[in-house]
């Protein structure tokens, strides 16, 4: 999708107008499609909430007021100082892991292993905090813990990449299997080596006691603004990944391998090495997501510690069309939904799992290009030519 084509300047005014229209559409399309999908999904979600309202204690069947109350509570949950802080808390891992999954998409790799990589990254950061954090100050412990999270996450991503490169085992199956393996590794680590020696129940140390706290409190009392400073890392990662993808040789090779692996191989690129590298990088980002969440939000782990970030990151990457800037915004959006869903559950009684269901509905509308189909049908009814030219249609297609 070319934005400003230089040759449009010399063309007659009518064509130039059309070209400008095309340019506007090329910018607007990537935004309009997800927004349309989200609005449609919210509508479908409202119908779903209404249909099931009878199951909620104190509500009659088909209570139309319930979705209104639920969405209002969702918004209220976001639009407050604590809501913004909690949005940042939820968004940090989503942006980081979303960048990791998006990187995989660009290379034609489908990383569903975010859950395992996140958890293993958490274990790495916790291991540093429990050992190094006892004797060293924050300047040493925090970078080391983040590094360990990144390294553990990268190693968890390396395994499926290595298996795919050497044996061809599909990363979708291996990453899912590894998710379960890392869930058990994490259980074992929490109840074994990372457990506090004198605790009654297995529980890890608190990172605030181990000089590895990333949580920032601005102000005091009820007006205090509490947030995870890991968001700064996520914000910094967006331009870094963008630069890596669009301004480096490695990024070019990653995008080539994703667009056409055979052509990339014939062009002399070492595609197997690229697979291993990209999967490791994707794991690294997910590991960082785990480390920042541990250090900036949860602080402590008990057996059963788990995450939905791995799958949410897929939604984030798809919504952001694997573009780092798009991922930033979709990560913030989904983070806001996650943050608001807690208030929704408390105030309106509607389970927070609604967000998971909404994600799937958003994605369905997104991947079937609902907006384009709707515009085309409207245009067809008016008897004019389809509203979307081939260029924009191509832009809307192929998320990966």
């Amino acid at each position, binding site marked *: 999708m070319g934005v400003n084509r230089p040759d449009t300047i010399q063309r007659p005014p009518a064509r130039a107008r059309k070209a400008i229209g095309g340019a506007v559409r090329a910018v607007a399309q990537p935004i309009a499609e997800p927004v349309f999908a989200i609005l449609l999904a919210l509508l479908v979600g409202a119908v779903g909430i209404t249909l099931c309202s009878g199951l909620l204690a104190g509500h009659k069947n088909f209570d139309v007021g319930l979705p209104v109350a639920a969405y209002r509570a969702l918004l209220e949950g976001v639009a407050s100082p604590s809501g913004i802080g909690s949005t940042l808390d939820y968004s940090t891992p989503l942006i980081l892991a979303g960048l990791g999954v998006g990187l995989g998409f660009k290379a034609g790799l489908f990383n569903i292993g975010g859950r395992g990589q996140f958890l293993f990254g958490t274990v790495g950061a916790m291991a540093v905090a429990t050992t190094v954090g006892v004797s060293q100050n924050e300047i040493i412990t925090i970078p080391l813990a983040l590094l360990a999270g990144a390294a553990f996450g990268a190693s968890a991503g390396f395994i499926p990449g290595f298996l795919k490169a050497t044996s061809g085992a599909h990363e*979708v199956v291996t990453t899912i299997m590894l998710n379960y393996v890392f869930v058990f*590794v994490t259980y074992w680590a929490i109840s074994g080596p990372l457990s506090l020696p004198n605790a009654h129940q297995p529980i890890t140390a608190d990172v605030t006691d181990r000089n590895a706290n990333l949580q920032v409190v601005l102000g005091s009392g009820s007006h205090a603004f509490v947030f995870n400073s890991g968001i700064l890392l996520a914000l910094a990662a967006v331009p870094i990944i963008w630069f890596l993808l669009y301004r480096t040789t490695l990024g070019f090779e990653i995008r080539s391998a994703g667009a056409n692996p055979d052509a990339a191989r014939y062009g002399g690129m070492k595609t197997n090495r690229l697979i291993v590298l990209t999967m490791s990088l994707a794991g690294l980002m997910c590991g960082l997501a785990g480390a920042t969440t541990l250090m900036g939000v949860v602080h402590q782990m008990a057996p059963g510690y788990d995450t939905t970030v791995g799958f949410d990151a897929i939604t984030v990457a798809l919504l952001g069309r694997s573009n780092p800037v798009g991922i930033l915004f979709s990560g913030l959006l989904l983070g806001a939904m996650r943050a608001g869903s807690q208030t929704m559950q408390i105030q309106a009684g509607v389970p927070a*799992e609604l967000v998971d269901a909404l994600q799937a509905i958003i994605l369905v509308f997104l991947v079937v290009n609902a907006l384009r189909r709707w515009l085309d049908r409207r245009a067809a009814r008016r008897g004019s030519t389809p509203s979307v030219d081939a260029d924009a249609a191509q832009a809307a297609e192929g998320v990966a």
Partner: protein
Amino acid sequence: MNGLPQALDALPILGLLFQFLGYMLANLGYMSQTTVAVAVPITLAALCGVMCERSGVVNIGIEGIMLTAAFTGWIVGVAAAGILGAGIPLPFFGVTLPLLIGLAAAILVGMAVALLHAWLAISMRVDQIIAGTIINIGATGITGYLYTLIASQAPTSAGSFAQYKVPDQVADLPVVGWLINAVLSQGPIGLSTIVIVIFLQVMLFRSRWGLRTRAAGEHPRAAETVGIDVIRLRYKNVVMSGALAALGGAWLSMEQTNGFNADMSAGRGFIGLAAMIVGRWTPLGAFGAALLFASATGLSTSLTISPPTGDLGQLMAHVPGEFWEALPYIITIVVLAGVIGRSIAPAADGQPYERESAT
């Protein structure tokens, strides 16, 4: 006669191996029964995968179909029991009317979810892996949402299907009795799985439907030129295969247990896909691979229920319990990586088919 085994067991290092063999032999009956049972949902997921991929559609939404079906079977069973009463169990398999209604609902819903996948993959020509992932995310979300809503009302259960009791005369047969006992001591879904495996194997390679399915998966354009409606065939296969995955889901909530848990499918849909690949896209092969993956669970349950004694027991005590729980997944990865080069997917697997325009 006990002198020799004892001497073998006492050997350093190698003795542990003999002790392990001895333990396996002693617990073989129990382990085999568990293995066959655990293999049932994996096999059904793999058969779903075989039917889809042989016709050219990649379906990684099997996990989601299983989860939705497990939830539906359970909740419809509970609702039916609430309206009709538990009913008198029939003399075989503890079948009651609510259970049957739940099972039928599970299968129908499974087919509906598969239809969604078929629509996304075949008609909308969405990337099939993304389509499957959407189904998995949606299944987790919707079942989680409804389960949280319903759990607050403390629902009871409609019970579960009972195991077939192999007659003692057969179970006591020398040499083969224990094996027959292990294989046949299953519930109705488990037993029908064995029948379905054989039926599908024959159908896929000996029937007109099978030939057409394989043609659509290998070379859809060629299939279309000889008059096969590839799109319709793919739709039919994906929707029918949804019933198989749904049966696997129903096994979880109506045969293995009598209730539902969030995420109770626990990756079995994906292990099924691995079994399909290892079994080279054939029903019998997939069943064999599923048995192999399930044997890890069989071994680990046996080790927890009756831990071995002696040196072996001391050694095993040092292995964390989480290792045994992770073992089925590790074995799946190792076997998958080991055989993959020799297992070739249908040529048109995962490629959307677009009919040439008639102009």
